[in-house]
């Protein structure tokens, strides 16, 4: 429970205060927005803060997205927002007053003339609009990743940042309110009679027949009603968006961690320890951001990093920091290599299974080790670490639940048997996590799996294929029944594959797998910036030469990552630019993180090569890496 304790100090001392401050500010701002609202027509409520994530969840197919939207947690979330929307709209309708104020109004029945309580449809209309806006806010929050917090490329004080973002927030909330008003009006036009009759029957309210019903064209073309609807909607969205904005600003504020502490009890709050944190991602991200900042701006803190431990004279600080950064980067490299291999084998198995007339899984996967443009060496046997499994160790809670069943490449039931087999053996504690190893070494590994049967892959995860004693396909003649079942299954699959809707739901979104791979790359970008600036600064500031010992490791790690990134960008859809959304509160920077990572990586290598220049020739690295670095020295990248 060491890590829990570690988290708790951070949560207790930092996150809570930030959350409290952001709530306090949003509460303090409420009078202002309320005044604006009252000016325009005429309360807002306390609502629970959303726990925002620093790593976006990227659904890889429409089915996955549907799964996210229909997830019980999301349903509860939507329900809460619907209720809040209704509550705010109730307050709004009460403050507007007039014909909107109450649900029941006295009216005179046409035939008898006696006064009864009728349903006030205007009031109901606004209440339902609130529920609709609440749901659409909650829905768009998932679709547009509104609860993903991106870090800005520059540091700003909170007030200027808030001031700078305010016009955007107002604009977004107005636009969103107009869209919602339009959509709700259309929805009410078609289905408005359902809630109306239900409410009137349960509450025993009459429907005033002398008034124009609102689910008709003439009833909806009431400009005063639409104006009040959009004004109240804008107010509702504005309060929500302001909360999101303030939360983002407070969470992403840079936090300065001490590099080393004189007291041992504070050691776990120091940068080297915090960097190695796995569970509280916010803390890890802030620590990496702090590393990147100190490497660029603070001479005194850099000197602390290069300093030796007082008894013993070991460069513990530098070793821990550089080790953690290298670990992060090599983990990304492995992720990329595994993805490339999965994609490469995916395409080939498909084409071969299409050409071969026998549909048995054993024959299709036994020819996997064919020729491929990047595979002069045999295919490697890396356990496939899909993003879902990568986040498994890092992102807690819903993210894991949501992404793990819908990982890229394997999410469709139509993916090749070989891949589905691979998923079975994915393992967060794979031998690749945490070790620095180049794919060149990894590639030399022989192909361990030779044959598989479909049933094995669909069932519970089997052990490593190396340990599973699966007899060679040629020696084992499959039983007739198994063969028949196999054929049935293939038929069902090909039948389903032809249905448009199924394909639409299960097909991978083209860029999503690429985006998901780089979803947490902001951490890698900071690690690259921090490392490169520290190494460059060590040229003149490192008095004890502590960086020299790790320089070969750092250089080869960067070059290996560069090779993996280069190969990744040769994959289809990897280099296509996402469409930019003009006005939404959702943060879409995660879509371009892979480009940012590539640029940061090249800049990092250039930073080191330009600082060290010809001295790099003296560094002990392999010949091919040296060749690549030579390209950088000549500015040919």
């Amino acid at each position, binding site marked *: 429970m060491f890590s829990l304790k570690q988290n708790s100090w951070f949560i207790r001392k930092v996150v809570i205060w930030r959350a409290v401050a952001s709530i306090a500010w949003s509460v303090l701002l409420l009078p202002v927005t309320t005044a604006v609202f009252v000016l325009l027509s005429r309360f807002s409520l306390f609502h629970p803060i959303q726990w925002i994530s620093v790593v976006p969840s990227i659904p890889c197919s429409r089915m996955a997205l549907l799964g996210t939207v229909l997830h019980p947690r999301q349903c509860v979330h939507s329900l809460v927002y619907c209720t809040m929307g209704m509550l705010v709209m109730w307050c709004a309708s009460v403050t507007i007053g007039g014909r909107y104020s109450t649900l029941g109004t006295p009216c005179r029945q046409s035939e008898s003339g006696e006064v009864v309580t009728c349903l006030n449809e205007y009031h109901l209309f606004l209440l339902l609009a609130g529920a609709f806006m609440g749901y659409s806010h909650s829905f768009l929050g998932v679709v547009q990743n509104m609860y993903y917090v991106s870090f*800005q490329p520059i540091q700003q*004080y909170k007030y200027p940042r808030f001031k700078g973002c305010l016009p955007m927030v107002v604009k977004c909330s107005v636009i969103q309110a107009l869209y919602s008003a339009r959509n709700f009006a259309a929805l009410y036009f078609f289905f408005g009679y359902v809630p109306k009759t239900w409410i009137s029957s349960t509450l025993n309210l009459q429907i005033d027949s002398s008034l124009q019903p609102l689910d008709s064209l003439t009833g909806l073309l009431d400009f005063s009603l639409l104006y009040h609807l959009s004004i109240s909607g804008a107010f509702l969205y504005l309060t929500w968006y302001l909360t999101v904005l303030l939360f983002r600003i407070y969470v992403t504020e840079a936090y300065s961690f001490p590099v080393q502490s004189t007291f041992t009890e504070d050691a776990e709050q120091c940068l080297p320890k915090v960097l190695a944190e796995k569970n509280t991602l916010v803390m890890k991200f802030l620590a990496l951001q702090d590393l990147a900042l100190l490497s660029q701006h603070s001479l005194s803190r850099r000197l602390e990093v290069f300093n030796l431990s007082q008894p013993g004279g070991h460069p513990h600080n530098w070793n821990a920091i550089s080790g953690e950064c290298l670990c992060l980067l090599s983990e990304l490299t492995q992720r990329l290599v595994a993805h490339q291999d999965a994609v490469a084998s995916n395409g080939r198995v498909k084409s071969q299974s299409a050409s071969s007339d026998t549909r048995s899984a054993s024959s299709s996967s036994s020819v996997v080790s064919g020729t491929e443009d990047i595979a002069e060496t045999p295919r490697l046997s890396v356990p496939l670490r899909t993003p879902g499994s990568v986040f498994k160790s890092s992102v807690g809670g819903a993210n894991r639940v949501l992404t793990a069943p819908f990982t890229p490449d394997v999410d469709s039931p139509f993916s090749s048997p070989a891949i589905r087999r691979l998923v079975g053996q994915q393992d967060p504690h794979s031998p690749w996590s945490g070790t620095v190893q180049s794919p060149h070494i990894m590639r030399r590994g022989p192909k361990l799996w030779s044959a598989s049967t479909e049933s094995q892959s669909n069932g519970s995860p089997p052990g490593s294929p190396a340990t599973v004693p699966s007899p060679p396909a040629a020696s084992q003649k499959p039983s007739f029944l198994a063969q028949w079942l196999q054929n049935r299954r293939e038929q069902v699959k090909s039948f389903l594959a032809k249905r448009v809707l199924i394909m639409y739901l299960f097909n991978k979104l083209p860029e999503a797998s690429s985006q998901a791979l780089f979803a947490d790359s902001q951490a890698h970008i900071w690690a690259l910036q921090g490392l490169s600036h520290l190494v460059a600064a060590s040229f003149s500031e*490192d008095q004890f030469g502590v960086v020299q010992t790790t320089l070969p490791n750092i250089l080869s790690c960067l070059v290996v990552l560069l090779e993996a990134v280069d190969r990744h960008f040769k994959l289809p859809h990897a280099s296509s630019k996402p469409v930019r959304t003009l006005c939404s509160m959702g943060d879409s*920077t995660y879509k371009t993180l892979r*480009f940012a990572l590539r640029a940061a990586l090249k800049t990092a290598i250039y930073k080191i090569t*330009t600082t*060290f220049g010809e001295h790099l020739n003296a560094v002990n690295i392999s010949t091919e890496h040296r060749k690549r670095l030579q390209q950088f020295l000549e500015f040919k990248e």
Partner: protein
Amino acid sequence: MCSLGVFPAPVTAAQTLFERNNELLSALHPGEHSQACDLPSPQFTRDTLKGHSRPESSSRSVFLDQRDTLWMRSAGAWRDAGLYGLLDEITNSAEEVPRFLAVGSACVLALLRWASSFHGSLFPHLTLSSDEMVAEFSQMLDWSDSALRSFAWHPHTDKFAVALLDDSIKIYKSNSSPTPTLKHRCQRSVCALQWKPLCGSALAVACQSCLLIWHVDPASLSTRPSSGCAQVLSHPGHSPITSIAWSPTGSLLVSASPVDTSMMVWDVAAESAVPLQRVGGGGVTYLSWSPDGSRLLAATPSALFRVWETRMWTCERWPCLKGSCQSACWSPDGGCLLLSMQGERVIYALTFSDLTGGPKAASVVADLSETTFPGPDGDLTVGGEVCSLSWDPRGERLAVLLKGDSQADNHPSVIAVFKTRSSPVFELLPCGFVMGEAGAEPRFMQFHPHFQHGALLTVCWSDGRISHVPFYFSSAGLLGGDSPQQALASNTTNPSSNKLYTEQIS
């Protein structure tokens, strides 16, 4: 304070070739050849380059079918020119629309024009057209008239980019490799170019409507990179862009437009921008990032400039006496900023000593008022307003481009070169005038970022030529600081035998 009067007389008859032994030598001297550089010196003439005769919007009427429905035309006008265009269209087609609509839109249009003219009277530059604005705020003298539009050295290699009158950009390298020509649909009225530091390929181009980032693969032999190699960055209301500046670490790009009160800080790879808005000044015309990356100068069209510190992005306001800040340059260590103002014939210096307390006032370091030198064929007057300033990367030579008087025939634009000394006090000493061939006036200049034997000034001339003027000198103090680093780095030569500490990665 240095003035032009103590300068050696300019040699008008011949082109200045180089500086040696503290003397600027020209082609008149026998036996002297330009032996210095094998750098390309291309020449472009106006006749071979054909600029765009008319802007895109005016040629539309030739092709557009005028009998479109009102709806179509209104939608087109809204798309092309926004609210103004829509109101204009409705007012112009008064016979097709109801009378109240035509009258109403005419009234709104008049009101908008009145408001914008009021706004324009506060900030006169807003009344300029886009091209005029670029010409006004460009560092290139006579931008609209010149065959060369902009020029930029690559910060690390012998490679430069030239923007030409026909909106193309050519890239020249020192060896005889092919010269790529960059053309893009959005690349119009190029005002500034800058190569990304710590990168071999990326070139930022400030265009009339957007910002283009070209990725020109240095290993590629292609002479016409496709427009797919260019990233288009744009932000509504942020055009024309007249100045761009990369951070020295290459991670951020800042762009400025005279009509936009906010400057954009771009994360280029992620294509996201953070606007930094300060309303005073009415826009941003010129940006210059200090070489150490800690400060950024932002000049506005009004008599005001700002110095941003780049850690938390706060700024200091510097109101000027007379005009706006025209040009500026930083000393290589980022501690000193030289500025020139419009309408003043002096160079100001601001010294930033430590991080907390900045300077309180700018001091005048050079007087550049008109001075007349007697010459063999009549008197020659030099001096005037400063168009641009450039400081060589070693901090030893300062080149100043002085505007001439186009009315007078013996008052050309010239480049005055100063020697600079920072210790014991900051001082400018005269070096000489860099002259071109007869009849050619300098338009733009930039120092080569890493010339081995001193400094190398590249000058763009009015006749479309680009020439290089080397200054040979041995550096006085700055390189001395490097020697401990060299010694330290030389320890790395044998890492295996030099391991002092055991690796303990815990």
